[in-house]
């Protein structure tokens, strides 16, 4: 247990970045110790992944067509899910932040439900709603011949379901923090409310939208439970990276570690981009 502190302690002071205003004041021990322990706890599994990675076999593992297929599918479906979330989620966030209708607080709570719902439960719920025999899905099937389960579109639906709340919450928070008077000024000057939204509000909250989009994208990329339940698992069609990792873990742990490294790299790249662009004041 004592050796746990070391990597955390080494990484601790560096995470402060350039703005260290209170560095001179020493942190009290009851806060410092658990804090460092928490950091070590969060970092240790990632370090272990790097330590145990089969570096020598990595090139052959990662150039296999299955891995590329899964990665490609993951990137495409996560991007599509983010696009869906943007198109539908930003208007929803605006409604929640700028309008007042009965039951608004309840709606807001319901929007956040997929955040706390176990993803597998979300997948079952999606099957019951949009499956071939689902409440809405049976009409999709009989009227348009569209069935979502076992298709790439189904993966996008499952990922959008779990990722959209991140975007909505993020954008709604930004909207609430943004001064509504700019919008009001625009409308008093003759702009319609939609024009005011498009020309004034949207540019104002763009950083918040971008941050929400990145978070939603990252969540969609890592989505497992809802995807395997709703869309199934077929290489090249619905087998995303997390599914490939899970199934590889059973009979080829080395392949699972290699796949995990790819996901880890992508996640770190996203978070680094997020931090540099949206989370530090310029």
């Amino acid at each position, binding site marked *: 247990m004592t050796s746990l502190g070391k990597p955390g302690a080494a990484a601790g002071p560096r995470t402060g970045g350039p703005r260290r205003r209170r560095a001179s004041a020493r942190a009290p021990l009851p806060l410092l110790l658990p804090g460092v322990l928490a950091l070590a706890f969060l970092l240790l599994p990632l370090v272990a992944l790097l330590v145990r990675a089969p570096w020598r076999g990595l090139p052959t593992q990662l150039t296999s067509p299955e891995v590329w297929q899964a990665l490609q599918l993951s990137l495409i479906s996560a991007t599509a899910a983010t696009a869906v979330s943007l198109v539908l989620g930003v208007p929803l966030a605006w409604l929640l932040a700028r309008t007042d209708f009965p039951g608004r607080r309840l709606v807001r709570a319901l929007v956040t439900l997929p*955040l*706390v719902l*176990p*993803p*597998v439960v979300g997948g079952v719920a999606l*099957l*019951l709603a949009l*499956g*071939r*025999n689902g409440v809405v899905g049976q009409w999709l099937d009989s009227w348009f011949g569209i069935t979502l*389960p*076992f298709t790439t579109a189904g993966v996008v639906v499952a990922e959008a379901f*779990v990722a959209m709340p*991140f975007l909505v*919450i*993020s954008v709604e*928070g*930004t909207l*609430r*923090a*943004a*001064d509504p008077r700019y919008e009001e000024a625009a409308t008093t000057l003759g702009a319609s409310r939609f024009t005011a939204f498009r020309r004034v509000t949207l540019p104002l909250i763009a*950083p*918040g939208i971008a*941050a*929400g989009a990145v*978070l939603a994208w*990252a*969540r969609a990329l*890592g*989505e*497992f*439970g809802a995807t*395997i339940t709703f*869309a*199934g*698992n*077929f*290489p090249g069609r*619905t087998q995303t990276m*997390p599914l490939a990792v*899970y*199934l590889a*873990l*059973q*009979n080829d*742990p080395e392949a699972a570690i290699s796949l995990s490294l790819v996901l880890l790299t992508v996640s770190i790249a996203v*978070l680094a981009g*997020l931090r540099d662009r*949206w*989370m*530090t*004041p310029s």
Partner: protein
Amino acid sequence: MTNRSVRRTRRTLRLAGAGTAALLALTACSSSGGSSTAASDKSSSTKLSGTLTVFAAASLKESFTALGRQFEKQHPGTRVSFNFAGSDALAASITSGAPADVFAAASPKTMAVVTNGKDAAGSPVTFVRNRLEIATMPGNPGHVSSLKDLTRPGLKVVLCDRSVPCGAAAQKALAAGGLKLTPVSYEQDVKAALNKVELREADAAVVYTTDVKAAGGKVEGVEFPESADAINDYPIAPLKNGQNAAAAKAFIGLVRSAQGQKVLGEAGFLEP
């Protein structure tokens, strides 16, 4: 004033971002299953007590749950806690140190993972065998009458993943019939495959006879001759990492007894 509110906006944004990132990390990891109850070690040498943790193949769910209840009745003071999942997933968690007393696998191959890892406390014995069957929707609307019918275009078929015993057996049966089948999905265990038919998302699934029986009227079974070439042996073994060796031995005894075999036989399992 404006400058200040902009800065406040930024800070709120930053906080919101950090908060959501934390949430993200929380939910991202919550998907994978695998519950394991730590066995409390209170066993005395003569009378059985404490918790017995049994990791068993998903296909054993109904019959082992019934046997667990009988075991608790026979040995008051004991509690049997089950973890039903794909045999491969269970074997992987046992070799990673999951605290289980007994492992019942759906194939010798997945049991070998555990014995090769020196995690078994005795040699495994085959206690039942299981045969594959096709599960279709009630009334068999796709008119499936053979394994070959599953290869018809337009029919949505789900199989177990190759890494799971039921998937390996299905591939063996397909090979025996010289058939090539492209399913819509490779499911992570046999119950997941069965569920897709129960929910009417798939037209058919290749599962075990016992699963068709356990599903009651929710699916209709279709037997096929190729299944004779892909009969699965189910081995059971006590585990080294277990904390209740006496109860483990007694439970395996119950499973292999006439009483245990009766329960398993009623569920559709074949004698070893």
